[in-house]
């Protein structure tokens, strides 16, 4: 069955901002889909609010709408574009939910849009628990398969609960019905616990109803990735086994492909069930995944759930096998069948097969708990990780150790040279799943723990535990060897030990181990991910290192550029950097280079083997990168290695790479040092005559107090050894400064800066070739200074800066670029306070905002940067049309659209964490609102990030003293718009004196009134409030107002009510609400915006 000819245009919905549980894997799947659809000649209409994605590049769709993914907005887009079909299975739950909402509202029918991929019935059957249970039961019955759903009972009285628990067997899971956020649920291990938990649950449930379910905690957990075409051909792309047993969300688990501990009988039963379920659910075409739990004692198998769409696991499975699930899913959706599609890797064989792996793939999650003080770090069925790394090895130990070092987080790799600790304590600690549990298990092994007690404690399958023992034994052998021979080294390497680990075990320096290893000729070879375990030759160079026998790196014929990616997503380093790397690869390949990508993040577009000429799926450590460079140099000339696009990870390797003789292109490592080292950067600024806020460095409380006294409070404090805002705080007085200093690590200096209160923060992305500066964009933060630029909303072009300000910014940026010696991208952060432009910091690399700037100004900055790094000048790029012939991002016409970037924060994942923004970045993603005027753009950004701003109802206002003056006008505007204003006493007084009728509400600290009048927190929880304005005051650790604010914001998160924490944000919100109230917030594609920008070539000029 060939391609469908009855449809010619397809709408694709993306997944919106990066959030925990829905990250850049959907950029990967969406980008693949767009590429396929366009290559097949369809007109592609794309909707995604996330500007950091590669899929929202104008070149991937015919009409790209960076607009909120809400049914209302998507309907407007459908109305304009009239697509024939909607593909919603590649944009995560967001796309699926939006498609369902459009269906339920009758929009799809009204406009004649066909849902392709999975139809409405299939989506409902897959998503509805009860329907799905019926399907599982039916499949088991009709096909005679071993498959069940977890047994459960609905109870309304304690007696019913006790009887049901006898039936189900303890422990049982108790889930009260209709309570919010899982309130009242828990595990009951015995009758006493059940009486307590179920009793409370029955109370908590408005319908006095609880669901009791048998516990499958500790069971083995598996996942299958399934593809089906419209001719009913079905293949299993990959099996995945979770090392962490049931109880830990699969996104937070260490997972392994292929499954390691199933016999063929059990695997085939699972396969039969998966296929029968996908048929029964009715996913006509495309991919889906099905999760299973297996009782390790009896083999009883429970089908947990299925996702009738492409998922995080599909991205992992695609990278693990070389079978591009999203790409094939897109082809199937437009009518092809599996045998009609060639296998990209072999070129010779069809896609209707099941990949066979002769290697092991391990994925490990990356967490960010250090950013969320107070968050519960226990891993549960609620996903908490922010990213992941994947590694490939020829054995599980090799893949596991490579994956752990790919995480780049301290303590993620096993250590063998320190005191392990107490055996019993370690065994007990390993029982609780949390970040780094495996390291605890290894410590327990080192302390002499037995396999049985570890199994009892962790329920990790004995096979995986034994593999850890193998690693331990290899380490012991390595430590005991009289000398490091080639044989010893090879053995350690085959089990995944890094040079650094070997150095630790042998008491050597990492460089010494490396030098010895190279002298002995112990080097990795690179094997191909070929989908077929070497049965057929692979045509696509997708490679991984291993200490095996044959190297498979193909010879190159063009000069090569190696691009280092950004590793696992983490807060502060995410998809934006992948965007820059992917763009560089596309552009340099087009410019005649052979592009070589190195990265270890399976969610990304950069690790799609289609993106670069060659892909190395490798950790981004110095050792692993040096070996890749060596392998590439053996097979052809390497023109350069690019380190400035992948964020801090590759940038941190720059000097060491250069020292090892690697040709690092772009800004030199010495120049990077000039920008990053405080003293050196201070001299650059002094030479250019640019002011920086006053600052000092302190080791003790006394020193700190003295410095703070000198420069004046408030001060910004941070440890000197971290980047990206970790551990930063704003301190207002001596007491809190002393407290901060006591908490800070004793032997590390603390940097103290004057904090510019009331300043406007400005972010600049620029391109410099050594003589000409191209100002990419000037972004003005909406929040006040002191909020990390990654968490702060910003507008481009700046909304309150004049051309004279921009002229100063341009001059300063130019001076810094020249002083530092930038070749390529430069990001500078400024603060404008009382007419003075202070330089806060400069980063000589691609920044988080590069994709946003590129989309807002319709200029491919990352591509241009890649060319500049390889020696092309800005003038040449202007001449060839990549950059505008005249002007730049600093000279945008007054008619240019306004783009607002808004950060998306993960507070709903970390209940109990204060939601107030500060100098430490905590957002996971961002959205863009773009429109002709600021109010519209801001309203869109809020809609995309948090849901539409309310246009009526009650607004609660409680602000710090310093904000009381500034809040009057915007709050009055809210009242004029018809909002009922609630306020705490102090705020209410100010408002009333200014003619705003504000109703006083009780503070949380007052407690509820005797007559039952609730506090503001109670009102928020009761859903009486529609908008919250609460600016924080006081310092951490204090009670009173500070604690009130904390409770208010927590309640806001719990109820999902918009909560504005700055006065500037309030002003913007008011403009946004006014825009919505005035009606018609329209939609427009990036291509149309670009057209308009080009149409207005007459720049306003900043000179």
């Amino acid at each position, binding site marked *: 069955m060939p391609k469908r000819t009855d449809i010619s245009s397809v709408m694709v919905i993306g997944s919106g901002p990066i959030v925990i549980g829905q990250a850049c894997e959907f950029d990967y799947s969406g980008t693949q889909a767009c590429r396929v659809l366009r290559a097949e000649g369809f007109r592609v209409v794309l909707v995604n609010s996330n500007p950091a994605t590669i899929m929202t590049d104008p070149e991937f769709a015919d009409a790209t709408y960076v607009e909120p993914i809400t049914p209302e907005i998507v309907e407007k887009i459908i109305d304009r574009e009239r697509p024939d079909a909607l593909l919603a299975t590649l944009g995560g739950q967001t796309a699926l939910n939006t498609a369902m909402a459009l269906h339920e509202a009758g929009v799809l029918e009204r406009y004649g849009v066909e849902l392709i991929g999975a139809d409405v019935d299939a989506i409902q059957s897959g998503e509805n628990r009860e329907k799905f249970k019926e399907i599982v039961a039916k499949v088991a019955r009709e096909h005679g398969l071993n498959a069940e759903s977890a047994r459960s009972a609905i109870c309304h009285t304690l007696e019913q609960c006790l009887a049901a628990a006898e039936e189900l067997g303890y422990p049982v899971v108790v889930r009260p019905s209709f309570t919010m956020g899982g309130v009242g649920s828990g595990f009951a291990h015995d009758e006493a616990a059940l009486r307590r938990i179920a009793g409370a649950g029955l109370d908590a449930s408005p319908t006095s109803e609880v669901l009791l379910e048998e516990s499958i905690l500790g069971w083995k957990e598996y996942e299958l990735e399934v593809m089906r075409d419209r001719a009913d051909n079905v293949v299993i792309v990959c099996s995945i086994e979770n090392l962490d047993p049931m109880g830990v969300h699969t996104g937070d688990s260490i997972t392994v492909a292929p499954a390691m*501990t199933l016999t063929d009988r059990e695997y085939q039963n699972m396969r039969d069930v998966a296929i029968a379920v996908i048929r029964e659910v009715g996913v006509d075409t495309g991919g889906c995944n099905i999760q299973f739990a297996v009782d390790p004692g009896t083999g009883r198998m429970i089908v947990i759930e299925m996702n009738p769409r492409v998922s995080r696991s599909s991205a992992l499975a695609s990278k693990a096998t070389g079978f591009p699930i999203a790409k094939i899913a897109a082809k199937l959706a437009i009518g092809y069948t599996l045998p009609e599609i060639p296998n990209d890797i072999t070129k010779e064989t069809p896609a209707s097969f099941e990949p066979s792996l002769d290697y092991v793939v391990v994925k490990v999650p990356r967490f960010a708990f250090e950013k969320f003080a107070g968050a519960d770090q226990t891993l549960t069925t609620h996903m908490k990780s922010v990213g992941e790394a994947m590694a490939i090895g020829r054995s599980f130990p090799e893949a596991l150790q490579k994956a752990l070092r790919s995480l780049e987080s301290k303590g993620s790799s096993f250590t063998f040279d320190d005191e392990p600790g107490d055996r019993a304590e370690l065994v007990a600690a390993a029982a609780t799943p949390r970040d780094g549990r495996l390291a605890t298990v290894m410590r327990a092994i080192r302390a002499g723990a037995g396999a049985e007690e570890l199994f009892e404690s962790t329920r990790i399958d004995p*096979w995986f535990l034994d593999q850890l023992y193998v690693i331990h034994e290899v380490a012991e052998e390595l430590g005991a060897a009289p000398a490091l021979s080639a044989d010893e080294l090879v053995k350690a390497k085959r089990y995944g030990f890094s040079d650094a680990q070997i150095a630790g075990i042998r008491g050597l320096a990492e460089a010494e181990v490396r030098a010895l290893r190279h002298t002995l000729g112990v080097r990795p070879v690179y094997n191909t991910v070929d989908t077929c375990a070497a049965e057929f030759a692979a045509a696509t160079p997708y490679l991984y290192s291993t200490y095996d026998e044959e190297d498979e790196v193909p010879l190159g014929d063009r000069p090569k550029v190696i691009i280092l990616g950004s590793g696992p997503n983490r807060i502060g380093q995410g998809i934006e950097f992948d965007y820059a790397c992917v763009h560089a690869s596309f552009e340099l390949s087009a410019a005649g280079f052979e592009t070589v990508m190195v990265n270890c993040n399976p969610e990304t577009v950069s690790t799609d083997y289609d993106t670069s000429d060659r892909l190395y799926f490798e950790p981004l450590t110095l050792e692993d990168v040096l070996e890749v460079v060596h392998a590439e140099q053996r097979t052809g000339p390497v023109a350069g290695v690019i380190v400035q696009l992948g964020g801090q990870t590759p940038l941190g390797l720059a000097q060491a790479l250069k020292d090892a003789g690697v040709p690092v292109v772009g800004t030199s490592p010495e120049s990077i040092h000039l920008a990053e080292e405080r003293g050196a950067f201070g001299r650059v600024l002094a030479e250019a005559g640019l002011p920086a806020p006053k600052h000092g460095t302190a080791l003790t409380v006394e020193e700190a107090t003295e410095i703070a006294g000198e420069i004046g409070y408030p001060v910004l404090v941070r440890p000197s050894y971290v980047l990206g805002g970790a551990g930063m705080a704003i301190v207002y007085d001596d007491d809190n400064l002393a407290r901060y200093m006591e908490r800070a690590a004793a032997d590390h200096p603390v940097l103290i800066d004057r904090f510019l209160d009331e300043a406007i923060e400005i972010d600049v992305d620029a391109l410099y070739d050594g003589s000409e500066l191209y100002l990419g964009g000037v972004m003005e933060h909406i929040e006040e200074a002191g909020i990390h630029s990654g968490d702060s909303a910003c507008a481009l072009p700046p909304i309150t800066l004049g051309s004279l300000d921009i002229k100063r910014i341009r001059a300063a940026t130019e001076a810094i670029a020249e002083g530092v010696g930038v070749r390529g991208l430069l990001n500078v952060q400024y603060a404008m306070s009382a007419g003075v432009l202070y330089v806060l910091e400069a980063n000589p690399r691609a920044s988080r905002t590069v994709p946003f700037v590129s989309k807002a100004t319709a200029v491919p900055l990352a591509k241009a940067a890649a060319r500049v790094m390889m020696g092309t000048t800005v003038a040449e790029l202007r001449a060839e049309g990549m950059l505008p012939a005249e002007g730049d991002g600093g000279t945008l016409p007054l008619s240019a659209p306004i783009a607002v970037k808004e950060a998306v924060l993960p507070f709903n994942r970390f209940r109990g964490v204060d939601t107030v923004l500060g100098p430490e970045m905590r957002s996971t993603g961002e959205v863009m609102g773009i429109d002709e005027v600021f109010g519209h753009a801001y309203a869109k950004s809020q809609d995309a990030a948090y849901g539409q701003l309310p246009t009526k109802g009650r607004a609660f206002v409680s602000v710090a003293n310093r904000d009381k003056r500034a809040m009057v006008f915007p709050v009055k505007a809210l009242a004029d718009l018809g909002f009922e204003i609630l306020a705490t006493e102090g705020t209410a007084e100010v408002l009333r004196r200014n003619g705003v009728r504000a109703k006083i509400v009780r503070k949380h600290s007052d407690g509820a009134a005797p007559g039952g009048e609730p506090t503001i927190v109670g009102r928020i929880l009761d859903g009486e409030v529609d908008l919250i304005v609460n600016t924080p005051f006081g310092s951490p650790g204090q009670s009173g107002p500070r604690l009130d604010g904390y409770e208010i914001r927590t309640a806001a998160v719990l109820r999902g009510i918009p909560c504005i924490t700055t006065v500037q944000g309030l002003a913007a919100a008011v403009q946004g609400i006014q825009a919505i109230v005035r009606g018609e917030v329209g939609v427009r594609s990036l291509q149309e915006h670009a057209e308009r920008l080009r149409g207005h070539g007459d720049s306003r000029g900043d000179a």
Partner: protein
Amino acid sequence: MTETAILVLEDGRVFNGTPYGAVGETFGEMVFNTGMTGYQETLTDPSYHRQIVAMTAPHIGNTGVNDEDPESTRIWVAGYVVREPSRVSSSWRARRSLDDALREQGVVGIAMPGTRALTRHLRERGAMRAGVFSGAALAPVEELLERVRQSPKMAGADLAGEVSTASPYVLSPVGEHRFTVAAVDLGIKAMTPERMSQRGCRVHVLPASATTADILALGPDGVFFSNGPGDPATAGFAVEALRGVLDSGTPFFGICFGNQILGRALGLPTYKLRYGHRGVNQPVMDRRTGKVEITSHNHGFAVDAPLDGPFDTPYGRAEVSHVNLNDNCVEGLRLLDRPAFSVQYHPEAAAGPHDAAYLFDEFNALMEGHRRA
């Protein structure tokens, strides 16, 4: 010091490793299997008789050995090559470790890092003879190579008799008895008669030496020829027996070697594939429906038949019913004027996917249709 084992290929390529299973020496045709599950079924599949099997999946033995999954009463492979043998058996069904099972049955194996290099070598150079040596059998490589070159070749080998049952036995039908099947054991896997029995067949399993008369004496509703080792060109006896069956008009179904026997009975040539199909992920298209099934394979030989449409045979018109989408190899034959068909792959699976199980239903349908006619 770790003990050593060495794998020597007939073309002189050598791989080093450590002993796995029994220590000693063994010879056979070197082949690779790409299945990621099912080592126990593979080891006990009689079709692997006289072959040294290399597993491309790196970790082998993880689930140990149980009493339910063997496909015959013993391990048949001549030698076993793995990368990472498991030290523990992790399965609620495991009874013993794979290492122990190999040792008990005297199967010489090797654990070595270079299994992928070996696979690539065989892919490029084709299947060839090899030897695994450890312990007292170790000697200078030239000497070992000489021993390998002295060992018998697979082409021209008549092996069915070596693996077949010595005397007939019967499997009772599960549920109602619907059909009687005479199954000639040329190296039959336990799951094959099992699948028939599950569908109401009483299966008489006969030795490879069964003649047409022996077969028809049972008055079967259908006749089945199984998989098995060796070169089909040497199976003249079985070909003769099958011709007699075809002449009788009794419905026929063949699997693997049985497919090659049907091919030869129809006058079609068979040939040796360069490195064969051994694994559980081969895409086969049923040409009647256009549907693709993922199938279990274990064959080094194939039938050469016209792919472009029906062709004439001494038994009337025939067609290629199934083809392998990877290499267009003939995977199934069907007579259009008589009730006979066969497939080159393994619908009984074990190990492998169950996609082709429908073929057993088709065999039943064929018998049903013939009985009515």
